[in-house]
């Protein structure tokens, strides 16, 4: 039933672009360095060093070090500088075309994190869109997801199962606020675990409506400073430093990345409770396994209805599914009459420390 494009097999790679018949010229193929546009001679979110890289967003599983030229959104550039150092960056704004070897490229809001973009490429009337990571709910920070019409849509599927249905952001924010207030009433600090780029900024916004006593981990602090310098408005936060006293941290809200969870760094927040903000918290077993006090299903990825809605809105003739539950989502799309293929990417190196989604 499912069709799997075997991209491990390099002979298939060379003579069969992702098109499986019908489509004349594929605009993108998977190579051992990732998604490649032969006509334009560039890669999208490559896994290794290449000459020309277009970057959807600054998360570490998408933006990697070592390429000669980078193209990204204006708001992504300072984040790449922060994370990858100085490189040859070219940035652009949403909807403004850039041409490389005659291939028309434009970036469109993906709603995932600040600066995150879908990549639209057009050549000889053929249009492909690479979603990167995306979410369909407007979080007020990342820009509203834009449905871009295309022939072929390459979609992510991190939460591609019908059990993943998010509550509106306002409700999750309320739950987080409620939890902080309860902790404060019990003289307990609230440690919120969130990815430092994307989730952390949303959690800071949620917390800032009820308290101005917000501390952040160094990694989040650096991101915060970078974003402020870029001109993004964010609430005021304080950095946890060795000089920060226990008294200052009493009853505070502390935002930390997953890598800090359970480390001695958290010692001086005692007494505290830990709340994890992640779409994975939707399933109880995950929350319990991580032994957290509270789990908030706050995600920067589209939920199941969001994925289906976005895919339909592109009116794509063909959908290629990657990054998550590709087998499930491609099978479901096929059964509902949308031509879809599962893209397995066994060559992709793992995300460092599993830090980001």
């Amino acid at each position, binding site marked *: 039933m499912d069709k799997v494009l075997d991209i491990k097999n390099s002979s298939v790679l060379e003579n069969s672009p992702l098109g499986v018949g019908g489509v004349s010229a594929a605009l993108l193929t998977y190579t051992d360095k990732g998604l490649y546009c032969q006509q334009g001679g560039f890669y999208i979110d490559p896994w290794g060093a290449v000459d020309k890289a277009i970057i959807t967003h600054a998360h570490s599983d998408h933006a990697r070090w070592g390429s000669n030229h980078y193209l990204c959104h204006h708001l992504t550039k300072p984040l790449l500088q922060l994370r990858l150092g100085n490189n040859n960056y070219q940035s652009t704004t949403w909807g403004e075309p850039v041409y490389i070897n005659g291939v028309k490229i434009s970036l469109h809001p993906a709603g995932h994190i600040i600066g995150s973009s879908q990549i639209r490429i057009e050549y000889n009337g053929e249009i492909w869109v690479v979603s990167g990571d995306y979410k369909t709910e407007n979080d007020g920070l990342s820009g509203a997801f834009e449905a871009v019409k295309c022939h072929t849509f390459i979609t992510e599927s991190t939460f591609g*199962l*019908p*059990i993943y*249905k998010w509550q509106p952001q306002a409700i999750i924010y309320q739950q987080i606020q409620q939890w902080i207030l309860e902790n404060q009433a019990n003289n307990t600090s609230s440690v919120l675990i969130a990815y430092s780029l994307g989730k952390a900024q949303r959690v800071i916004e949620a917390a800032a409506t009820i308290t101005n006593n917000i501390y952040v981990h160094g990694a989040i602090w650096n991101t915060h400073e970078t974003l402020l310098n870029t001109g993004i408005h964010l609430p005021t936060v304080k950095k946890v430093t060795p000089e920060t006293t226990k008294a200052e941290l009493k009853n505070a809200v502390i935002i930390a990345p997953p890598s800090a969870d359970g480390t001695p760094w958290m010692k001086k927040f005692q007494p505290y409770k830990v709340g994890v903000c992640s779409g994975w918290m*939707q*399933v*109880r*077993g*995950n*929350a*319990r*396994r991580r*032994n957290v*006090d*509270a*789990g908030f299903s706050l995600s920067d990825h589209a939920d199941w209805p969001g994925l289906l809605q976005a895919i339909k809105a592109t009116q794509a003739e063909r959908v290629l599914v990657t990054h998550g539950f590709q087998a*499930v989502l491609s*099978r*479901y799309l096929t*059964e509902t009459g949308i031509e879809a293929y599962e893209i397995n990417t066994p060559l992709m190196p793992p995300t460092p420390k599993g830090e980001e989604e």
Partner: protein
Amino acid sequence: MINETSNNSQLQNFPLGVGGFLDGGFSLFSSLVNILGTSTKNTEKLNALQHYFSTASDKDKVWVIAIFSGRRPKRIINSTILQQWCVELIDLPLWLFEESYHTVGDLAETIALLLPPKPPTPKGESQSGLTLSHYLEEFIRLEKAEEPIKKDFIITTWMQLSQEERFVFNKLITGGFRIGVSQKMMVNALAKTTKIEASTIAHLISGNWQPANINFADLLNPNMVSKDDSKPYPFYLAYALEDDPQNFGNITEWQAEWKWDGIRGQIIKRNGELYVWSRGEELMTDKFPEYLILKTLLPDGTVMDGEILPMQDLQPLPFSLLQTRIGRKTITKKQLQEAPIGFFAYDLLEYNTTDIRTKPLQERRLLLENIINSTLAGNQLLANTIQLSPTIQATSWDELITLRQGSRDMGSEGLMLKRKSSPYQVGRKVGDWWKWKMEPMVIDAVLIYAQKGHGRRSNLYTDYTFAVKDGDRLVTFTKAYSGLTDKEFNEIDAFVKANSLEKFGPVRTVKPELVFEIAFEGIAASARHKSGVALRFPRMNRWRKDKKVDEINTLEDLKNMLRIYGNKKDGK
């Protein structure tokens, strides 16, 4: 029967039937379950229970006591049908439901996550009927109803509830309410809210009562105990002794007995009737016709504590034989012959209609011996069935340690040490009673199949099947799920995912590489198992990272263990 532990002043302090407001209903219960299920701290759980017992309606409280003490109404529908109704309702293909279930690992939760959102309650319509007791009493009412009626009830209810409440409701249907709360903790919370002593509460909520037919005030009224002839006493449980009893003082202060591998039971004779209770608080009188003769022989007002176990000519037989008896609704003559059940009595809780639990053990033991001897006098038939559990005579700890080495030859698992001056307490208490089990038997084996766990481990491969060597072949002989740390489980999970050879449904065949030391308490011959043996309480003792597959034990080693420690009789 006179209850020596009850005390009149407590009665006056207890606001019978006063407490409890009626709102909150099912949502109050579901948030209680949520806290109990997610909290990692016992004090928080205790507080949540206390809060519940001081705010919920009396009717719901009775049901909470019932559920947390294992008195759930019978299951009205099986999982397959429940799943089917959900699939119909959500309009998704079955395979997608199954994929979801596979990821979540819990049926009740999968359904709660997949159902369409609850429609808004029309203005002016009250939600007050939605109480825990309402739903559970509907379960009882609909037990024998036609399927469409049950379906209508369940779907209507789903549509009344929020996602969290649906999860709890589904759990009530599917059972497996293994949320992080012990009966002991519930009893403690009740004790704090009602100001009745915990041991009294444990006694009051034991035995035979129907949550639908009793009110909260009567259930927790110390004077009501005497009205129920069948009511057992809460069992006193021993702690495991880790070291040798070096600092236990003079051995003459202790009574040593064999530790039997059966089911802890209470035999009650009151007002001409006989009742047999298991430690799981199940009334099992009808399961053991062997004991029936006691109805005429035992004096009224007698309660004995002891071990229900298969035995012949006073020799214990494998535990598996007992299992063949418990599972049956009716017992045939053949089963009575093949799996004869006896009783080793080791304590007396009620004598001459008086609760004697506060008397010291040595006094209770004398009274017990008295009863057994006078009851047994001249009754040869009974002598094969009911026996005093013998005490072991030793004049020094060293002598006792030597005697303990012979435990397995006696068909026992080790020793029990009980302080002669000890009262019969309630629940698990440190200090006076100890179980001093033999070291477990161990065998090194390789992991060859893995399956995802449930609940907390729903996304990890944590259920394993192990094999020993038989020449060039690997022969499976046991499953095991417990004994490792979360970190080790994560490590094995990663190995399983990277080294799967085949997939059969949820089971993966794993490259035979990881070696574990499997510990177990007993071994018996079994025709059902490929290896020909069945283990008792198998668990992963440790991960032998230092061993390779060709260093594991062999089927021959297992068979040798069976020859030495197994009983001849087969538990087919």
